[in-house]
């Protein structure tokens, strides 16, 4: 059998973030899924996908939080917990920094859920994912 390309292991780690963002997972868990040491993993992940694993995991959570704000009436604190974040304060800070407005303001800026086209969730996940600025990425 042909040898497995190294990126396939990195994809498994990326899938872990997409699948288990609700749980308190971190970069260590992603590195384990790829079978690499944390430092080596972070370097290889960034090379393959263009951002750090930590940033990938956080933007997955923020993208899902934004979707929940748009499409549900869950209170903001429940949205925070539903995406695997423990602190409302840091959730609000990350969200505001990324989307340019608070979770409450973001929700108010969008029409109710029923107005949306039925786009498969994988596209919502990919195209709804926020892009974080390189400067703030230094601190995550």
């Amino acid at each position, binding site marked *: 059998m*042909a040898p497995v390309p190294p990126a396939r292991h990195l994809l498994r780690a990326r*899938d872990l973030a997409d699948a288990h963002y609700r749980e308190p997972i971190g970069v260590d868990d992603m590195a384990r899924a790829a079978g690499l040491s944390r430092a080596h993993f972070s370097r290889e992940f960034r090379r393959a996908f263009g951002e750090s694993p930590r940033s990938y995991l956080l933007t997955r959570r923020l993208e899902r939080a934004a979707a929940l704000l748009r499409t549900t009436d869950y209170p903001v604190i429940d949205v925070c917990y539903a995406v695997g974040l423990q602190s409302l304060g840091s959730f609000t800070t990350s969200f505001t920094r990324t989307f340019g407005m608070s979770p409450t303001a973001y929700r108010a800026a969008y029409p109710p859920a029923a107005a949306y086209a039925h786009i498969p969730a*994988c596209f919502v996940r990919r195209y709804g994912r926020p892009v974080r600025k390189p400067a703030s990425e230094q601190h995550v």
Partner: protein
Amino acid sequence: MIKLANAQLWVHDQDEALDFYTGKLGWDVRSDVTLPELGDFRWLTVGPRDQEDLSVVLMAIPGPPVMDGATAEQVRSLMAKGFAGAMFLTTEDVRASYEELKGRGVEFSEEPEERPYGIDCGFRDPSGNSFRLTQVRPDIGA
């Protein structure tokens, strides 16, 4: 009438793909033919058991002269990163299908979740091709 008959997916290894699509996904083999006169080209197709007029071609990434080495490496890399192909499946009961596939060892990238259009989940084949499995809300149709 023009109908869709076959759709192609690149796969990393045809034997590995065959095990996955038949053993884990539970699909049937439609054809598995190797042609010595075409340099052992292997035409391997599979499909859902109850949807006989549609097949997925599990295509090995060729070498030269069909595809030059650099291009083959790009395709291999795109596939391993999960950007080469995608399939969208539907089911009447996504939670039951999820349990069934998970029980057979399918690696899910997303667990069943409520969406505006129904309930769906995601998984990958061993090559990295992505699949969505959706139970479409009855009032909106597929």
